[in-house]
Structure formats: structure tokens, C-alpha cells
């Protein structure tokens, strides 16, 4: 392990906790909490992906509007989500009530499924979707904090691997559920939203009944010692390993160009029939589903930072694959891309949280995770916009070459930033 987890929280005292892990004695019950959170995410993802899958059809066929008339989810939404995520995390830490904050997020998103039944204009749908994203933003960090607090420091990778596997399974099953409803009831978009609401409500029920707030924290927190936003930031900035990991995550994020671009390059190189295009993300998700748990466990054994960086190596390999390959038969190239991208997500999404969590004092875990993840997400968003611009100005090959250079530099910089034995 490059980063010591046991001493991470020693230097600070923001609440009552001095160790990086909680309650490792109750292995079984703790595993159940992670699985319960995974199941909550799974049914919630079934619910939200049901809506995502039929929304284009609903807009064009059901409501008869041009989706190009409004930029559905643009930078504004991304910004709002990031902000809400930080607020949700801070609230969860401050009140020590991660479960209720996450619950509010899940409930808000569930309510939005009913909200879709009430609006018929593109503008109204935009508002409901923004509220849905707000719910997602609210719940993400408290949920990840709950996961990390429900597993020992040695099993963080496995815990996040279990969660992301269940989460992705829900995301893959959601569209199938939606199309089954439409198959039973032609043009029954309202029914899809109603069933989606029932799934989301079921997720809230599972959360309420089966997810426990980890009991390790002292139940009586002196309100005067609850960390405010400024103190939280100052403490996190001084927490050993956290600033460097956050910086590395942002650097790596800034060299990540977004899958859609890679699919576009793949499609152009292979002259791939356009009808396959919507299926490309499914291939990556399937690889992610299969790899999330094994790679999470591997990260626990060989080191999370090592796996995190190796994951970006897989992404680099994906770039190079598209850049250097002369057209071979399409199927092996597509499968190789799926495996590389799936491995990239499996080695970065949950593993970043698993790498960050043990560094963070439990009292600030949600905030710390939110900061690291938001920094990475913001960097990725900026990178996608910048890459789009480079593509426009110079064409795909030059843009992809630039991305390879940037990612190589980011990985080298991260290797240096996160090198073993680095102090402070």
C-alpha cells in the first residue's frame, strides 16, 4: 500500500473518531450493509434507466417535440449536480446522518418519476430532470461514505466493487424493463414512468429498512464541534495523502476525453453501421459489470493506487488501440475496446473511492469523497469540452494523439505525486 490508512486520521480531531475504520468486528452484518446499499442502487438504477431509455421515444413519439429544441442536459446541470453533491456531503458529515441525507436524495428522484407524468412541455421535463439530478447529487457522497464506513480498511475495494457491480446490473436491466412495459402496452410511456416510480420507491423502502447508519461513531456529538465548511476544507487539506490524491484524480480526469468520442472514432474507423452506435456503451457497461468486483478485490491486495493508475493505463491502451490500429475485423477491435474501457471504469470508479476513504476521517468521509470525486468529474467535463474543441480545429487523429500525450503526462505526474514514501 502506498498510502498508510491507519495513520490517516491521527493528525486531526474534528469529532470523536481517531481511526480510519469502523466496527470491523461485525464482518457479516457489515457485508449486509454494503449489499443492502448495492441493492438500493440497483433498483434505483433500474428505475432511472427505465426513464432514460424511453425518454427520447416519449419526447419524439409521445409528445411530438423535437429534442434538439432544447439542450437537455448541459454544462449547467453538471455544475448544479456537482454543487449539490458537495452540499449533500457536507450536510451528511455535519449531522452525522448519512442515511437520512441519502434517503432524501433517493426520495426526491423517486418523486420526479411521478413529476414526469405531470409535465408535457420540454421546459417542464427539463425542470423535472434537473430535480432528478439534484436527488442523485445529494445521495452520492453520503451513500459512498456509508459503504466505506461499513467495511474495514482492508476491504474497501471489495465493498465498492460489490456496490458498483449491483449498480451496473440495475443500469443494464432498466432499459429491458422499460421495453417490456412498452411491449405490453403500446406507447404506454406513462406506465413506464409509473413502474419506474414503484422501483424507485422500493429502493427507498430497502434503504429505510435494511441500511444501517454505521454505529461506530459516538452518538453524542458536541454541536459546537461539528465541522463547518471552512474547517472541513482546512482539515481535509491537511489530511495526509488527501490533497495529493485529489490532485492526481483531477489531473487524470483532465486527461480523460469521454467515451462518446472513442465510440465515434471506432465507428468512423470501422465504418460501423450507425445502428450499432447506441449499443456501444452497453458493451462497456457489461465489461464494467464483470470486472468491478474482481478488480476491486485485486486493489485490496496489490494496492488501490497501483490499480487506479493501471486503470488509466488501460484507458491509454484504448486510445492507442484506436489510434494505431489499421482496420482489422470490427468485432475483435470493438470487444478489445469494451474490455479496456470496462477495466478502466472498474479500476477507477469504485477504486478511487476505496483509495480515498481510508485516508479520510470518518467524520469527514462524505465531504472528502465528494471533493475528490467532484474534482475528478469537473476535470473530466472540462477535458471533454476541450477535446471537442481540438477535434473541431484539427480533426480526430490529432485530437486523439493530443489525448494520448496528455494522459501519459497525467499518469507520470500521478506516479510522482502518489509515489511511496511521500510525506505530507
Amino acid at each position, binding site marked *: 500500500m502506498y498510502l498508510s490508512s491507519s495513520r490517516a486520521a491521527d493528525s486531526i480531531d474534528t469529532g470523536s473518531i481517531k481511526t480510519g475504520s469502523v466496527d470491523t468486528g461485525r464482518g457479516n452484518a457489515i457485508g449486509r450493509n454494503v449489499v443492502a446499499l448495492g441493492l438500493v442502487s440497483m433498483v434505483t438504477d433500474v428505475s432511472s434507466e427505465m426513464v*432514460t431509455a424511453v*425518454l*427520447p*421515444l416519449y419526447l*419524439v*413519439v409521445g409528445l*411530438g*417535440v423535437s*429534442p*434538439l*429544441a*432544447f*439542450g*437537455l*442536459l*448541459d*454544462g449547467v446541470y453538471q455544475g448544479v449536480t456537482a454543487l449539490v453533491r458537495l452540499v449533500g456531503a457536507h450536510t451528511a458529515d455535519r449531522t452525522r446522518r448519512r442515511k437520512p441525507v441519502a434517503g432524501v436524495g433517493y426520495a426526491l428522484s423517486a418523486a420526479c418519476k411521478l413529476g414526469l407524468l405531470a409535465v408535457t*412541455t*420540454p*421546459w417542464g421535463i*427539463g425542470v423535472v430532470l434537473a430535480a432528478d439530478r439534484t436527488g442523485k447529487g445529494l445521495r452520492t457522497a453520503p451513500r459512498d461514505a456509508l459503504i466505506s464506513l461499513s467495511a474495514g480498511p482492508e476491504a474497501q475495494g471489495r465493498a465498492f466493487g460489490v456496490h458498483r457491480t449491483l449498480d451496473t446490473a440495475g443500469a443494464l436491466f432498466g432499459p*429491458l424493463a422499460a*421495453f*417490456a*412495459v*412498452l*411491449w*405490453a*402496452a*403500446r*406507447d*404506454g410511456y*406513462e*406506465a413506464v414512468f*409509473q*413502474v419506474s416510480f*414503484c422501483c424507485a*420507491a*422500493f429502493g427507498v*423502502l*430497502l434503504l429505510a*429498512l435494511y441500511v444501517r447508519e454505521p454505529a461506530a461513531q459516538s452518538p453524542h456529538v458536541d454541536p459546537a464541534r461539528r465541522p463547518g465548511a471552512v474547517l472541513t476544507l482546512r482539515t481535509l487539506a491537511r489530511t495526509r495523502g488527501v490533497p495529493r490524491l485529489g490532485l492526481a484524480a483531477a489531473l487524470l480526469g483532465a486527461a480523460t476525453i*469521454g467515451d*462518446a*468520442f472513442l465510440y*465515434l472514432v471506432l465507428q468512423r474507423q470501422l465504418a460501423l*453501421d*450507425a*445502428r*450499432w*452506435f*447506441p449499443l456501444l*456503451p452497453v458493451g462497456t457497461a457489461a465489461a464494467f459489470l464483470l470486472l468491478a468486483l474482481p478488480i476491486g478485490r485485486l486493489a485490496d491486495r496489490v494496492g488501490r493506487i497501483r490499480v487506479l493508475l493501471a486503470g488509466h493505463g488501460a484507458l491509454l491502451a484504448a486510445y492507442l488501440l484506436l489510434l494505431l490500429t489499421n482496420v482489422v475485423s470490427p468485432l475483435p477491435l470493438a470487444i478489445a475496446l469494451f474490455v479496456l474501457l470496462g477495466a478502466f471504469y472498474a479500476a477507477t470508479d469504485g477504486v478511487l473511492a476505496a483509495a480515498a476513504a481510508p485516508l479520510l476521517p470518518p467524520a469527514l468521509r462524505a465531504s472528502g469523497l465528494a471533493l475528490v470525486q467532484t474534482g475528478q468529474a469537473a476535470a473530466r467535463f472540462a477535458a*471533454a469540452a476541450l*477535446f*471537442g474543441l481540438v*477535434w*473541431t480545429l484539427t*480533426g*480526430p487523429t490529432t485530437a486523439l494523439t493530443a489525448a494520448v500525450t496528455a494522459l501519459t503526462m497525467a499518469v507520470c505526474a500521478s506516479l510522482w505525486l502518489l509515489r511511496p514514501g511521500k510525506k505530507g
Partner: protein
Amino acid sequence: MRHRATLLTVVTALLATTAFLAVDRAADRAADRERPHTGQPAIQRGELDLRRPGRLVFRSLAWGPQRDRLATVPLTAPGGPRTAAPRDCLRFHAAAGTGICLRKKSGVIPGHEAVLLDARGRAVRHFPVPGIPTRARVSPSGRLVAWTVFVSGDSYAGGAFSTRTAVYDTRTGTLHDTLEDFTVLVNGRRHQAVDHNFWGVTFAADDNTYYATLGTGGRTYLVRGDLARRSLTTVRENAECPSLSPDGTRIAFKKRIRPQGADAPWRLYVLDLRSGRETPLAERASVDDQALWLDGRTLLYALPGDFGADLWSVPANGGGHPRKEVASAVSPAVTGPVSASAPAGTAASRGSTAR
């Protein structure tokens, strides 16, 4: 927590029942749409003949067993009884005996296809399409066909939509899978972007020149294309879903008059290609359709209606008033051996519901 399992069982049963009832009710409503209702246009079953002059053909939205089928009415009595052929289409256009029908494929997972039709409405060739149909066009001679579909999840911003437009040459059998492969000149300079979207093709009489919409960087452009040279050149900004007049001198289009995200953002305009002058038409409602030139003086377009959409007409010179011509219909085309040969002013001059 002894009550936990009970609570879980009861609430889960409640949610499952609600979900089941929701699907069941939706299935009932779907079945209801398959039954004829009073107050709807009379429909009889019959043959389709895209060469027979003087008829308007469209996708009929009237509830009943003929819903979504191609139906025809005489241009002299567009509001009268319709004749429906056993051919389902979501979007449709025809000219000079060639038809293009964008339809839903059967199966659990929704898919769509473009079907090239002969004058009898029989399928000549099927093309898979990667999204939801929105526009279809046939060139005046019946030789070229084009279609546009919406593709979702195809944008780097996530969640946004893009379009895919294909052109097929029925004589050479050449399929241009996507116009995005063509060279684009914006204001005279070569323009490359990952967010190029094309939609709404309209063909000129020479079977080489065409117009379409290019969307990039949050702007839309009217573009003129040269099919043989595989190139597109911008003509002007803010002009979508062009429709070239039968004499090739004017283009009807929808112009955005309200910003992104606003309701009712478009107005119908006609552009004179020689003078470059734009004329707003008498229709005050927002039109989200590629208008059809019924003749040299009248445009036909769809507006939202009780059963999805109705077809309205308006004079192309900016005067007059919009009139409802056909209830519960969308995607119109004029039949005949050569395109747009309808006698001037037929439908519009005797339209039923003036506003």
C-alpha cells in the same frame, strides 16, 4: 426488527400491484386506440397508388384499426372519407411513384427501419436506422430519398440528442449512410466538428442539389448540398427543416424566434432564394415540421391536435389565414406521376376550418 419483514412484504406487494395496474391500464388504453371512435373521419380499406394524380397521402392518426396506416384523400376533399392501405409508417413522403416509409420494427426492444416503397406501397428495400424517425423526403423525380432519425446517447455532453441523415439513390443503389461524412463549408471555409448534425433534407429537380439543416455549436444553418461532390455549403443561419418550392425558387423553413429551452420556439417562414428575402407566414403557432408545398402557393404542415396532429395549410406569400385541412394526420405527400403537380389552390381554397 420483527416488523421489518412484514413491512417489506406489505409495501412491496403494494408497489408491485400498483406497477401491474399501471401497465394493465396502459394496455387497455392502447387497445382502446385500436377501436374506432365517433367523431373521427370515416375510413375504408383500399389500395395505395402513389402515381394516381390528385390525392393527398399521409399517416392517419385517427383511432381505430387503421391507425398509423397510410391513408389517401382527394385533394379536392381533404377532410372527407379516407382510404387506408395496409402499410404502417411513423414518417412518410412520396413523389413520382416512389415512397419512403420510416416505421417501427416489431419486437420487444424498439427498433426502426426505413422502407423504400414502390408506387403500390410494396416494400422494395429495407434499411436499418439508428434512432427515432423524424423526417423523410423523396426528390421530385422519385429517384433520391432521404431520411433523418434522432439518435440519443451519442453526445459527449451526455443526455443530449443528435441526428443522423441518410440519402439513398434508387437508380445507382448508392447509400450515403450519414451526411456527416461529407465536406462542410461554413461561410466558405472548411468546417470540422464532432457535433455536426444534419436534418430535414429537401431535393431540387436536378437530383443532385439538395438543401438541409446543419446544427453545430448551438447554431443552425441552412445548407446547400451537392450530392456528386459530397459537399455542403452554408446558405444562411437560423433556418431549419427546409422545403424547396416546386419551381425551385423559394424555401419554406422553420425559424427559431425564441431561445433554447423556450416553449413554442419556431415560426414558419418562406425564403426567396434570389433576393434572400424572408417572409413570415400567417401561421402564428409554433411549427415543428418540415412543410410540404401543396402547390406553388400553399404550404401544408402539422400542428399538435387531439389525436396527435392535424394538417393545416397557409398561403406561402405571407397573407391569408391558416386553415385546418385534415384532422388526425401527419407526414403528408401529394401523389402523382410527377411531383407537386396538383392544380393550384385546390385544398387551400376550399379548406374547412378557418381560424
